């Protein structure tokens, strides 16, 4: 009975493993094929593996070179890194501080504030896209006006601030859109941390800020890593807001770049290039997950209190 149960369990897990790994492997393998080879042999191993020679290696290298250099993937990649990393830093900083206050302190309006963040989770982002677009136009104008005297005084001439077509604007949206989930998750997480740690630190002579940054935050690392990964995955693959708010090709992020190659691929049928681009977009996600998954599962609070 027991062996049938464990057989079923493993069978299910193996099916799941194949379902997850197979498409990914297919992307990797296809990125090593030239377009002609892809048409001849769309599913099998590339000749780079079965019968490697200089020509096949060149086709493989060419795919990546075309993607990285020819199709501006290097620029998209850097743009993505800038936007996502700055967003993540802000999200984690603001989110953890908000969540800590909501989890640990009693103050007037606390429940309302918490409900407000919760409500943010319920709003579909597609719904606010258009109002946000116009709001950004207004905000850009208002900011231009606000900083005009300063710009004049500094002799910068006419300074136009625009939230459209700027990484700053996109980061602003990403941070605002990610905070509800981050605050919600981290508040629940901070509630599970022993309050005595904070009290011990306060009595040891630390201020509330030092207690937060030197005691509670390191202890809450597991929770921070979890939300960091989730947010990273969401933002790295984010397409819709990027599409609406960025039109300058030099500012585009990876998903936008990928979309533009896939559109070109419809006419040129350059599948090698498309899959090489996919691999480039996918790798950071994979690497992040592989490196941080141990942190995800490791409970760092072990030993803080009796155990």
């Amino acid at each position: 009975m027991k062996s049938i149960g464990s057989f079923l369990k493993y069978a299910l897990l193996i099916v799941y493993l194949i379902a997850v790994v197979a498409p990914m492997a297919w992307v990797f393998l296809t990125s090593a094929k030239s377009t002609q080879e892809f048409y001849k042999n769309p599913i099998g191993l590339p000749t780079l593996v079965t019968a490697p020679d200089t020509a096949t290696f060149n086709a493989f290298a060419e795919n990546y070179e075309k993607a990285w250099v020819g199709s501006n993937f290097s620029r998209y990649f850097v743009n993505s890194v800038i936007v996502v990393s700055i967003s993540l830093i802000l999200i984690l900083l603001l989110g953890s501080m908000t969540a800590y206050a909501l989890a640990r302190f009693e103050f007037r309006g606390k429940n309302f504030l918490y409900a407000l963040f919760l409500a943010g989770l319920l709003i579909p982002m597609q719904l606010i896209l258009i109002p946000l677009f116009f709001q950004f136009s207004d905000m850009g104008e208002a900011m231009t006006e606000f900083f005009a005297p300063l710009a004049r005084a500094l002799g910068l001439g006419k300074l136009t601030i625009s939230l459209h077509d700027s990484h700053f604007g996109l980061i602003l949206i990403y941070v605002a859109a990610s905070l509800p989930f981050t605050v919600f998750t981290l508040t629940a997480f901070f509630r599970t941390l022993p309050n005595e740690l904070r009290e011990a630190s306060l009595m040891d002579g630390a201020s509330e800020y030092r207690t937060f940054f030197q005691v509670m935050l390191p202890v809450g690392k597991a929770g921070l890593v979890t939300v960091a990964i989730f947010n990273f995955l969401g933002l790295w693959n984010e397409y819709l807001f990027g599409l609406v708010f960025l039109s300058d090709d030099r500012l585009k992020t990876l998903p936008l770049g990928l979309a533009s190659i896939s559109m070109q691929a419809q006419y040129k049928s350059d599948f090698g290039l498309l899959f090489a681009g996919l691999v480039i977009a996918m790798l950071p996600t994979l690497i992040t997950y592989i490196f941080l998954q141990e942190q995800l599962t490791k409970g760092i609070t072990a030993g803080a209190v009796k155990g």
Partner: protein
Amino acid sequence: MASVTFRNLDKVYTDQQTKKEVHAVKNLNLEIRDGEFLVLVGPSGCGKSTALRMLAGLEEITGGEILIGDRVVNDIAPRDRNIAMVFQNYALYPHMSVYDNMAFGLRLRMLPGFLQQLSNPGKTAEIKSEIDGRIQTAAKRLDITHLLDRKPKALSGGQRQRVALGRAIVRDPQVFLMDEPLSNLDAKLRVQTRAELIKLHRDLKATTIYVTHDQVEAMTMGQRIAVMKDGVLQQCDTPLKLYHSPANMFVAGFLGTPSMNFVMEAQVVRNGARPTIDTGEFKLSLPEERAAKLNDYVGRQVVLGIRPQDIHDKALAPSALAGETPVRMTVDVIEPMGAVSTLFLNAGRQTFVAEIEADTTAKEGAPIDVIIDPTNAHIFDKETEQAVF
């Protein structure tokens, strides 16, 4: 070191779940002398931890004052009160080594700001070596030198307890607070650590306030014990004073194991010179010198309290009690403890617990003649539950 004074201390808070107001500490007046080891004891929810946390600055004070030395500390932040606390769950910083756990508070207090550290590296190194010296001394005293590099999760419960103590003593604070520090240890380790804490206090002579719900810990460790119930201080005195002259029925029943026997419906009658208590099942004549105190109670109902240790098997009773009238009771259950046996006795409707020498010939279900030591009997007012003596 400093004394601690609670003056008309009050604490009222709203329970987050029930939304009801809780009066956790009511008009507490207590003075802990400089260098004293005082134990705050009481059942859970009696307000002892709340009082301690108010002293630590972790709870706001609703009314009254707390003084450390001559200084009112009501509005002073915890970090400026110069107090160290040992928590029940130790609250060690899990991401720091034992050394850093102990150094955390010292670095915060002793090292100057970052820029000053940079501008005066010589002075900084000097302070750092002083911190190191203090940690090494404390570690040696607690025998945790070999653990300094480890993280808390690599330590056993007893070792964590020592590290928590070490973190408190390196700071050399004015007052030590301990909130049930032994309750997470197993029974054997608890007895051992109890003795070590007493020794540590003797060496450091630090003002210590120790909160526990365990009356054995209170009796063995406290120079004085403050017994609390429902937010009200019942009595504060030395362990033996509390044991021999409890102020009320609660203190009498709380301290001592097994706890005191109470006869709820006893009557005071006059019988010649000696005042006599009639329990309905038997009569107990008290010493003559008690008569004056009982004058007002003649003919009234009182509560009689007898400690299990004051009930003797007639055959084994000390010679001083030879003249007393024996009382016949039935043995219900005998629990042999080794040196003594705990007997559960019936006298009509009343039940008694007695601690009797193990070589008694008493048999379960058989009658036994016992002698109750009248000099140690306690009488309580039935309405106020306060002790008459």
